[in-house]
């Protein structure tokens, strides 16, 4: 459940720093949006496709990354074509698809922990205004840890609801999950305090 979309590899793309990749993505998508023209879309697509190749990802992986956009593309393309002409249609839809493909590529080639480290580094200057990067990192780790626990309570609550014959009541499902979420948080808070978090 908690497997990220990261795909291990040893390519140049995998080995380059997470911060550099994020910065590159930011520049790339900004330029793409600034031009928003069929030519920019074509150039952007060529670049992204080349980088997918560099990372060892095939066309099938690329398609899978933008697959969630299919409904948008199907509705938007004919609509824009009809109201604003094909150039605009290609520019708008193409920009969206290429930007999403580029962002997905960074996630494919970068470990979750490396991206989280970037966040911690970016937050370092925020120490001055009272943000503690160590606590932020703890908060993120705690959440990753809590997901399977809360998912477990969901399954238990669903079974209990079935046992009581209340299958159709969403409230009979959500109330116990929320109550258990709070109880779990109370226990975790206590365990954190015992391990000296507040000291």
């Amino acid at each position: 459940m908690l497997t990220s979309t990261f795909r291990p590899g040893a390519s140049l793309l995998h080995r380059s720093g997470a911060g550099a990749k994020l910065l590159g993505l930011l520049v790339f998508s900004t330029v793409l949006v600034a031009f928003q023209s069929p030519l920019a879309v074509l150039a952007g697509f060529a670049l992204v496709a080349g980088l997918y190749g560099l990372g060892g990802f095939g066309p099938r992986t690329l398609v899978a990354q933008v697959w969630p956009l299919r409904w948008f593309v199907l509705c938007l393309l004919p609509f824009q074509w009809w109201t604003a002409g094909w150039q605009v249609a290609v520019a708008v839809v193409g920009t969206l698809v290429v930007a999403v493909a580029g962002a997905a590529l960074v996630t494919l080639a970068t470990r979750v922990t490396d991206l989280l480290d970037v966040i911690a580094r970016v937050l370092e200057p925020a120490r001055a205004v009272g943000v503690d990067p160590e606590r932020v990192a703890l908060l993120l780790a705690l959440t990753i840890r809590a997901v399977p626990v809360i998912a477990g309570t969901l399954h238990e609550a669903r079974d209990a609801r079935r046992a009581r014959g209340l299958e159709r009541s969403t409230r009979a499902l959500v109330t116990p999950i929320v109550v258990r979420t709070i109880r779990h948080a109370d226990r975790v808070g206590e365990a954190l305090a015992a391990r000296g978090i507040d000291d």
Partner: protein
Amino acid sequence: MIQIQGVSHRYGDREVLSGVDLSLGEDRIGVVGANGSGKSTLARLLNGLVVPTTGRVLVDGMDTARDGAGVRRKVGFVFSDPDAQIVMPTVAEDVAFSLRRHGLGKAEVADRVGGILARFGLGGHLDHPAHLLSSGQKQLLALASVLVTEPEILVCDEPTTLLDLRNSRQVADLLEGLTQQVIMVTHDLDLLAGWARVLVVNEGQVVQDGPAEQSIGRYKALMGAGRPC
């Protein structure tokens, strides 16, 4: 050595402990009592998780109300639900988290983490996601994460309650072999067999303090006398 001096504690207007005076110096001390008797609060007093409303608790002379941080470095605490104690996503990370303020180098941390996990039979699971461990393994990990900082005293609040017979045996054996002072709250009376000192807590008071056999006898008599809660 832990000293509890004239301690009472209340949540709102509900008094959960009253007039407790104890000196806890033995290597192994058990605590038994019904649900809601106050024994969990008693355990939480020992490392400053709960600060008494009146009276004071001293750990090697340190007042838990004044120097909670110092007390918590000396007193480790194991809870019954390992899922709430393991705060990091993977096994090794959780143990390493305990050492974050010990000023150790990366290699030294890895060394200690690997060492204690091997001792607890989790040596092959360093990068394993914690949620995929069995309940027994989770509780062993929770114990490892507490013991890696080498506390002088270990307080356990029903450490085997959520475990099956085999897993609770494993945890019990591990606790048995510790060199630390262990103070254990439990419903599992078998765990306490032969212990020199077992306290019975009932309605916020310590009603019996003595060797396991006598205390457990008294506890069973209390429970049989029509006071299930």
